[in-house]
């Protein structure tokens, strides 16, 4: 390898990492290194073979692999150094990055680092269901990999816990492949994913949905042979007497994603307890100088297009840092207020236009989204499953009073 110092080192080559690496090169970084533990670039895109990608970024309806391919080609064309089958094992606050691959272990000292490690799925261990530990319990993402890449069907009679997008997409996929999806069980009183998936994955195939239900027991010793579902009361406790047995050989868990941040934690990056990802500012910079973050590693995105945009921002700013540009003071905190679960970025300068992404806690209609007292926007519908994007212009930011050090975001009914 080249002996000049690395300007920007990107950890993880999903859409966030590829966008960051491409943008870092475009912004003038000479040496950009993209490190990926898998055998191929692209992160989760290769297993997401359904369409619905790129509607915002390319104004085109693409599948995951097609969307990924566009960026893989750009990575190849932009003289980015790529290390595949290479795992980053350690990251320190002074940006020492320890890698491990077939050639052994080595430590690099790039001028800046971008964290784009994505997220992982919550597994059975992180939710509590009683029963034995039989074969036939998968996370929805593992099942997606099996069906779309490896060519295995995880089972024939399936129950899915969780109605998020990955769960619904898998309900359709397994049905098309000849399995029978006997129920999608959802704890909340509404379906958790995009409306498009609700219609085209669930209703199109008449898949039964049990809202305000949970799985209270998994049956089977060697292999799953059924689950007990039960209705939930207002406090989310199973109501005695409502239990029902559903025969099945497979249970898929689609119960949420957790940003992958062991490396961030090691480097002393402050994590947001709600998103599970680094606290970032409008430049996608963390509290550790020279370390940037983007994509699902920061917060779980429902649209890949937003992941790409975040990655580009992180890559550009990491490149500027590598070229010696100092970071700016972030003095204003964006705080999640009434009916707002989280806000990204969490810190801003208040000096330039910023795109704020946030999620609400509860669905609502005819609400007003407020940014402190400087901006208010009427919205017809809000849902926890659909991330909100709000551009706050420099003009609005001028309204911020001199001594203000926080803006509370809220999303409440019009009064």
């Amino acid at each position, binding site marked *: 390898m080249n002996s000049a110092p690395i300007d920007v080192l990107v950890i993880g080559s999903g859409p966030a990492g590829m966008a960051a690496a491409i943008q870092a090169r475009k912004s003038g970084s000479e040496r950009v290194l993209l490190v990926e533990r898998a055998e191929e670039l692209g992160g989760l895109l290769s297993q997401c073979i359904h369409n619905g990608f790129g509607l915002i970024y390319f104004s085109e309806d693409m599948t995951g*692999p097609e969307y990924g391919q566009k960026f893989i080609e750009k990575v190849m064309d932009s003289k980015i150094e790529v290390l595949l089958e290479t795992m980053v094992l350690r990251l320190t606050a002074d940006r020492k990055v320890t890698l491990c691959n077939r050639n052994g272990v080595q430590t690099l000292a790039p001028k800046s680092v971008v964290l784009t490690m994505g997220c992982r799925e919550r597994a059975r261990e992180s939710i509590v269901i009683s029963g034995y530990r039989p074969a036939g319990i998968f996370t929805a993402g593992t099942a997606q990999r099996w069906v779309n890449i490896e060519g295995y069907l995880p089972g024939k009679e399936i129950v899915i816990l969780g109605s998020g997008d990955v769960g619904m997409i898998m309900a359709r996929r397994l049905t098309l492949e000849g399995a029978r999806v006997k129920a999608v069980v959802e704890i909340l009183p509404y379906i958790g994913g995009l409306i498009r998936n609700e219609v085209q994955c669930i209703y199109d195939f008449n898949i039964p949905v049990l809202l305000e239900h949970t799985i209270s027991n998994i049956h089977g010793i060697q292999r799953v042979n059924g689950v007990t579902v039960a209705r939930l009361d207002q406090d989310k406790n199973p109501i005695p007497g409502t239990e029902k047995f559903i025969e099945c050989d497979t249970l898929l868990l689609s119960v949420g994603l957790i940003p992958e941040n062991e490396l961030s934690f090691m480097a002393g990056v402050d994590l947001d307890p709600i998103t599970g990802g680094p606290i970032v500012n409008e430049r996608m910079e963390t509290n550790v100088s020279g370390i940037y973050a983007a994509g699902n590693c920061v917060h779980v995105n429902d649209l890949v297009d937003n992941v790409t945009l975040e990655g580009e921002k992180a890559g550009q700013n990491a490149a500027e840092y590598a070229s010696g540009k100092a970071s700016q003071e972030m003095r204003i905190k964006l705080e999640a207020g009434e009916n707002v679960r989280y806000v990204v970025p969490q810190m801003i300068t208040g000096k330039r236009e910023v795109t704020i992404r946030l999620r609400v806690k509860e669905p609502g209609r005819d609400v007003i989204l407020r940014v402190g007292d400087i901006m208010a926007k009427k919205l017809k519908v809000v849902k926890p499953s659909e991330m909100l994007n709000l551009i706050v212009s420099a003009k609005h930011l001028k309204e911020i009073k001199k001594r203000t050090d926080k803006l509370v975001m809220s999303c409440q009914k019009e009064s």
Partner: protein
Amino acid sequence: MTKHVSEIICIVCPLACRVSVAADDERHILEVDGFQCKKGKEYAVAEYRSPMRVLTTTVIATKSRHALLPVRTNRVIPRGKLINCMNYLAKIKVKPPLKAGDVIVRNILNLGSDIIAVGTLLD
């Protein structure tokens, strides 16, 4: 004559309006209600007449490091034909090299849509 009302959820925007389409015994549309914009009305009428979908799936790969090749229809096809296409594609096997955009099945089941590769197939 009886009036049949179908409820169609509009998926054009996140508002997800519930549009009701009333039709007679011959499925002639009598009235459409509940939409909030023109696009929604058009969607509901089209969805009532013939729901069209993109099919995305995989076909078996041989002589390749990959077990499967992801594919899709290059045009929408009637929703009622999705399973027929799946059954047809279950018998298709492909060999490398293939790249995104390559036609795998031309005019599948005479539906006016090709099945094209969306990924790369290497040997």
